[in-house]
């Protein structure tokens, strides 16, 4: 672990990477140049495929496979970089945006070239105003340097990159909600099929990738797909930025090879817990992931190991909770988030998230019923697997995992009503 040298976050804090001169002096944009001048697009797709890169946006879908789904029917294709980052606990894309925007542009342009995109877009979360401004300055510099726009780096390839600011809805991070929003429509997910690969932005074949995913592509180009594939577990390789927050001494973004044990992340990198506290639980992959507990601390932090333990790596956001955490309170806060962010289109998510929130609120104020505690689990089962998009599903795991593990913390909210009923 000590031997790992960061690549995605390299230079952050040392040099002003928002300046194109600085970025270039450190080898920046060389890979874009090499790609468009020396490589066939399909060769790049092949490299990404072999690297086993899996998407860093949440679902962990193999990026090369996603790219290869695009139909070869001559319709214009689009690449969309998802920088909406609103998953509770996640703040890695924001750091990349604010600290190393050129790396993002390079990743986008290489990937756009690889999939032969007619145009590329980046959708930036509305609240990231500063990041947006930094990015726009970087984009201007890149355009002036012929790295975006017409005949890039003197090749025959031209591609515009358009930046769009969101307006503050979590659901606009879901790829089809994002596409609707980008088209100027109400930000609500689309029914699938059709999938974006076939009918995405303006009904054209579209790839949506997370910021970090596209940044990884720059390094796959630079160091080779074998290098990438050799980091960490075979099926889930590569460097990963983990946003660690909650009850730790040194919250922050840490770049590690996938497969690093969770204990190392919490106790070494993030500095461990505060004096006198004991570990209670953690969410390994953002607000949408089920909790892991003491017994999971020695698991390797990678997609498949976390999934096998019943949770998910998600966006790579670790929220650590110590013994001071009231799980009822925590569950209510998160459930309120999902109920608030539900777009309201489909029945189970619209009604179910609100129902759970209401029950939690009632329990929190001591007005709950005992049956509410078991209903919390039942309602989750009614939502999961039935919703139109993954937001509905995402509202369930954390709640179910903590109700199951700490039922007494929830039942406490029903004591008063139980007493009256007796």
């Amino acid at each position, binding site marked *: 672990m000590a031997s790992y040298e960061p690549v995605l976050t390299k230079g952050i804090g040392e040099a002003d990477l928002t300046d194109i001169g600085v970025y270039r002096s450190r080898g920046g944009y060389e890979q874009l140049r090499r790609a468009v001048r020396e490589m066939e697009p399909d060769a790049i797709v092949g490299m990404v495929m072999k690297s086993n890169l899996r998407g860093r946006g949440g679902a962990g879908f193999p990026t090369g496979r996603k790219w290869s789904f695009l139909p070869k029917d001559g319709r214009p294709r689009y690449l969309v970089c998802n920088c909406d980052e609103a998953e509770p606990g996640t703040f890695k894309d924001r750091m990349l945006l604010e600290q190393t925007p050129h790396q993002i542009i390079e990743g986008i342009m290489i990937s756009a070239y690889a999939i032969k995109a007619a145009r590329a877009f980046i959708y930036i979360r509305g609240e990231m105003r500063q990041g947006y401004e930094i990015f726009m300055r970087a984009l201007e510099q890149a355009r002036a340097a012929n790295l975006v726009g017409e005949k890039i780096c003197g090749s025959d390839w031209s591609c515009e990159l358009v930046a769009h600011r969101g307006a503050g809805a979590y659901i606009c991070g879901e790829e089809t909600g994002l596409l609707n929003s980008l088209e100027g429509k*109400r930000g609500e997910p689309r*029914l699938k099929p059709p999938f974006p690969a076939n009918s995405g932005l303006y009904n054209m074949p579209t790839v949506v990738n997370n910021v970090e995913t596209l940044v990884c592509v720059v390094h796959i180009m630079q160091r080779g797909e074998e290098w990438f594939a050799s980091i960490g577990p075979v099926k889930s390789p590569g460097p990963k930025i983990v946003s660690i927050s909650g009850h730790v001494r040194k919250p922050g973004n840490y770049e590690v090879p996938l497969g690093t044990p969770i204990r190392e992340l919490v106790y070494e990198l993030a500095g461990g817990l505060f004096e006198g506290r004991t570990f209670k639980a953690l969410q390994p992959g953002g607000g949408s992931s089920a909790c892991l507990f003491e017994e999971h601390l020695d698991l390797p932090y990678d997609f498949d190991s976390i999934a096998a333990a019943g949770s998910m790596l998600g966006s790579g956001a670790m929220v650590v909770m110590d013994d001071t955490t009231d799980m009822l309170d925590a569950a209510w806060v998160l459930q309120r988030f999902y109920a608030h962010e539900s777009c*309201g289109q489909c*029945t*189970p998510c619209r009604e179910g998230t609100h*129902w759970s929130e209401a029950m939690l609120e009632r329990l929190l104020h001591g007005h709950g019923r005992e049956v509410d505690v078991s209903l919390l689990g039942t309602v989750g089962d*009614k939502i999961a697997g039935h919703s139109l998009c993954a937001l509905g599903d995402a509202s369930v795991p954390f709640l179910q995992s903590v109700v199951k593990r700490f039922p007494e913390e929830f039942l406490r909210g029903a004591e008063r009503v139980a007493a009256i009923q007796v």
Partner: protein
Amino acid sequence: MAKTVTVTIDGVKVEAPEGELMIEAAKRIGHHVPNFCYYPKLEPAGLCRMCLIRIEGQPKLQLGCNTRVTDGMVIDTISEAVETGRRAQVEFLLLNHPLDCPVCDKGGECVLQDYAMAYGDVASRSGMPKMNKPKAVDLGPTIVLDEQRCVLCQRCVRFDNEITWERNLVTASRGVYTIIATEGDQPYDSYFSGNTTELCPVGALTSKTYRFKARPWDVTPTLTVCTQCPVGCSTFADSRFDVLQRTRYDHETIDPHGDPAGDWICDRVRYNISYLTDERRLNTPMVRSGEDQWVDLAWSDAIDLAASTLKDAAEHFGPQAIGAIGGGRLTNQEAYLLQHVVRGLGSANVDYRLHDELTATPGRLAAQVHDLDDASLIIELGTNSVELAPVFDLRVRYAVERRGATLVHLGDVKPNWPVHFRHFPTEGDAASMLNEAAENVRRGEDLPKRAGEPPAQTLARLLRGAERVVVIWDGRGASEAAAIERLIGLLRDADKGAGVIVVGYAANARGAESMGMHPALQPGYRPAPQAGLDTEGMLRASASGELKALLIFGANPLLAYPNGALVRAALERVPFIVTTELFMTQTAVKSHVVLPVKAAFEKTGSTTTMDGEVKQLAISCAPQAGEPLTDREVLALLGDAMGLQMPSDSELEQLAAAAAAPELARAFSFTSPVLARTVRPAATPAQGAFTVHSVPRLYAGGGTSAHDTAFEPLRPHPTAYLHPGDVEELGLEDGDTVTVRNGLGAVDGLTVVTSKKVARGSIGVIAELPEAPVNVLADDCGSVHADVVLIRKGRQALNLAGAQGE
């Protein structure tokens, strides 16, 4: 044709077209997959999650409404897992649903009720108060919304977005607070709004006219046809105690195949039905006894009077002194009888054409309505299908939005299309533009596209690039007819698909034409041995005193005929006019004998749609007062009283059916020389600074729409549409009241609406409004000029239904 695949549904092997939606495939074995948001005429939306089914080999339940069958698929629509999934959705939907079924209009035909019985629990587990969402939200002139009852299936929103393309309805807010709302909080104002009440699976959308009126189990449904415009939509009429309560399209019966672009109905037939029981309805025959004095007559006396007077006139002045004008209210059988009576008296003066049309039958040059489904270029001239054939217009919109067909309107007032179209102003001469474009195509020169090129050149380019062309025309104008014939000939010679659809002004015009309600055509389009006078000819002969007796059956020429001066002079002068009517219309007031008749919903007979399809009317209700007869009965009585040889009922059915045979219509040519019309002497048009265009409006008219209190709020307000530049120059503002006048007459009480849909120097005035008849400004059927005079500053209460400005 899609390949057929075999799938196993609930253990039963079924053949289905590959790619068919599972929910449809299940119907093949009679299994109903519960659903709220699915609707065969709309795109799948996957919102309600009620249609869950299980596909073998897939871990998650799938949607019946968005999964397409492939060969060998094994599907469960009935199983424990599926039922559990559905029960979850019903429980969710009932969490905040008011369950006020006893006072809900949908009670008895509500799917939520059905599913609550099938999948719901007896008691709620939530233990929470229900959310309060607004009830009785006034969405616009026609619709009331109960947000609490709404299950957010968005059928209404989707209909308004993907069928009408009007985009009035939206969802607002999010999560559990999501509601249905209107764009920009504007009133939901659409000719198709009523369809949403039928689409709504629950009692959330109700119509102002039907709210709280009846229960579904109290009404008797009858399948009949709307006779308000040439489209002739199939319509269910639901009556209670012989009183019509509501109309609906009921796709399950009328359109099981789910044609998204057709088989809806418009709000004219949905909301303009209370005229049937209006107290102003005529219920006894009347004879005039002096100016504005009327005396009731027994039917026998009225028929005797009419018959003897007609016979006397024929004997004294010759049969040519008798004429008949009939309208779109007549069935084919009635139209047949009317011309039969006139011809029986020895006259050939008979015509259905009240708007100076040439034809209603496209004949050899016809395109069928379904040709729009693969047309690449649609050219409309003269008419405006938005207003004159609304449900047909949905197919035009579909062609443009779903298939990318190019839509062009040649004319001087820009239509209210919600879809993209190109507008080429013609200054009253669309024929020249068509001719020029056709000539350009014929020469085959492909001039480069440039800005500012003449429209005819653009049109020529569009024509050259189009594989299939459909022309939509109102059937007016000999030069237009010739130009269309030439263009279609040219295109067909070049192996392109080309044809014309006539969208005219009267409902059963096509039926009347085929029945020989035409001075030059006998039933079945047979040329008459001796042509009689056409409408213009009869009016001229009336005005000059040669015509002595006029039968007007189901027509209001005083309001409809463009040459207002002529029709007024004519009706003043004819000594004997017999009119059959439901109401004391402008024309009826000028008659001598007025006979009360039954309305379309009260009689049987057939009617021919603009597409040539013969449809049957059925009796769905009965007049509530007096003793009106059908026009058919009146004509039979009259014929008998005059001693004419009249066909028996069964003979009449056969004659009418024979005359309506499609092959006869197909052989017809509207440019045939036998159709020569009365020559109009050149008039010296009245002077005026503005060119006046009469603008058709679906809800205008002097009959059923003017005599319906419930419909009154929807009737268009008399309006003067003026270009913003002219409004400014005249020192006017929106809402001012003006008079439009010239040497012939004045139209008073027009409200100014600024609109870019009219050109500078033009004024649009809504046609056929009895309170502001625009034809008083004309003494021929050509262009009209007049001045605009300010009467009163300031905004009057505007009726939005007719006054969509821009």
